[in-house]
């Protein structure tokens, strides 16, 4: 092969640069397209749902007439389910993460737990619904209740919380641990007074991301048999129930319920286009809830990356 002449080399370079620029254009297009989808999604829901953004919409129960239907039982249901989910998943997830990072010895059990957490993240969410249907609803007899739904979602987001807890703990340098142990603190005291507080922002980020995922989940909750049409609220503790009795402190846990995503699903699948407006409005409310939670988490994470320099 003769060495290339300057002209030939320049031709090769020009061709290469052309492909560079072509790819850049395609890359920008793909990115812009993905962003455009979000914008289109939000814009569509805002425009279509705008006539429902009234106080009534938030404080009305579901109704057979689209214009009178609201999301009261749905948002209250979502809130209560999230409460149960957080109460179950946060302590469990943080404890498991703490154990795996600070206590676990390298043995078979630890290995099984680790592989298992990775694999659980790939299990489709509807399978969690089947698990809950078999175990919580029928074996434990919790029924199609807020408790069942909350526990289901807790299991679903447990891997997220465990993984973020572990990452947050791993970012703490060994010298903090050694410093604490050196003055005679036990392992638990070290965890309680040093590890957990320092890992807190990271854990919090994981919790928010997990809850944002849970609040938008529909499939597992439908699977356990949540009702789609609920025109009442779960009993407030100590409020008067029927037949002169008062509701117990935890009665709401076993109450039937609906949540935001199910309400949207219900409205979306109705043939009457008037309900599309409700679906759009409710969808927008759910998006605002989820995206603001995610935005807080992402903000927290970027802040942490910037600030923490041990």
């Amino acid at each position, binding site marked *: *092969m003769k*060495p*290339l002449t*300057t002209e030939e*080399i*320049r031709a*090769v*370079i020009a*061709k*290469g640069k052309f492909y560079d620029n072509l790819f850049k254009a395609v890359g920008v297009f793909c990115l812009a397209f993905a962003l455009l989808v979000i914008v289109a999604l939000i814009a569509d829901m805002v425009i279509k749902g705008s006539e429902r953004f009234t106080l009534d919409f938030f404080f009305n129960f579901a109704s057979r007439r689209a214009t009178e239907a609201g999301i009261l039982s749905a948002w209250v249901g979502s809130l209560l389910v999230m409460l149960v989910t957080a109460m179950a998943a946060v302590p469990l997830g943080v404890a498991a993460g703490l154990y795996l990072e600070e206590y676990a010895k390298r043995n078979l059990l630890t290995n099984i737990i680790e592989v298992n957490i990775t694999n659980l993240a790939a299990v489709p969410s509807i399978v969690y619904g089947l698990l809950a249907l078999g175990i919580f609803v029928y074996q434990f007899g919790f029924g199609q209740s807020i408790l069942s739904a909350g526990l289901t979602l807790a299991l679903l987001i447990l891997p997220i919380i465990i993984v973020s807890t572990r990452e947050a703990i791993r970012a703490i340098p060994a010298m903090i641990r050694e410093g604490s142990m050196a003055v005679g603190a036990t392992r638990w005291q070290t965890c309680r007074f040093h590890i957990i507080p320092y890992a807190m922002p990271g854990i919090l980020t994981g919790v928010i991301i997990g809850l944002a995922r849970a609040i938008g989940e529909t499939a597992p909750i439908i699977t356990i048999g949540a009702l789609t049409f609920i025109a009442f609220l779960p009993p407030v503790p100590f409020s008067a129930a029927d037949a002169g009795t008062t509701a117990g402190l935890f009665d709401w846990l076993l109450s039937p319920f609906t949540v935001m995503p199910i309400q949207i699903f219900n409205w979306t699948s109705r043939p009457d286009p008037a309900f599309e407006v409700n679906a759009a409005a409710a969808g927008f409310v759910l998006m605002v809830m989820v995206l603001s939670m995610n935005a807080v988490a992402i903000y927290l994470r970027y802040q942490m990356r910037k600030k923490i320099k041990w």
Partner: protein
Amino acid sequence: MESPMQIQETPTLKAEARNLNFFYGENKALRNINMPIYDKKVTALIGPSGCGKSTYLRSFNRMHDLYPGNRYEGEIRFFPDNTNLLGADVDPIEVRMRIGMVFQKPNPFPKTIFENVAYGLRVRGETNKRVLEDKVEHALKGAAIWEEVKDRLPEQAPNLSGGQQQRLCIARALATDPELLLFDEPTSALDPIATGAIEELIHELKKRVTILIVTHNMQQAARVSDYTAYMYLGEMIEFGKTDEIFIKPQDKRTEDYITGRMG
């Protein structure tokens, strides 16, 4: 072996830095460097860490253009065509096609041995299998690694040993017949035996190609180079024939460094 006749000859210029300054953002890393590079000779750059020798070396193939915020001033003239390598109208890619580089740590691509060496040829648009095979064999022979790998060409390059990887990287650079070959501390990640092999190779290579080598090891500079430049704090302190620099340095700072009082 060089005959006494050759030593008398005035070498031809291959490249020359003229008033070269370089900035990493606000930070001035090279200060007014003037230095010739002679054709088919080995020129060594020595000096303490952070003296700018790698920065200087990487100016020749415009590696600094890969990162934002870097700025050159002055010129590096490249002969015989007298191009300014740093000129705004000169495409860095074209510069890199003429000037090869071997890095501090061997960096074979995650490809087969054959494809690693053929890389530069493919970049230039060569697809003829016969030509590629010829060139790859020639380059591997030139890098003194042909005998070791001729039966393993379809194997993954990262499976080679460190010394072999570095010679493979040299073969990769040789395959495209560069006019100037830059070595950035090529043996710092290698054991003494592999280092010896590379040094011997550099000695062979200067028959074909001009070599500029950064080294942190003064013995290495003394062993492989014809000319040596001593750099300190971004400045070129002294440049001359290697024997002269090592036997009777003109500058006090060079002497301190060479005798081990500093650096």
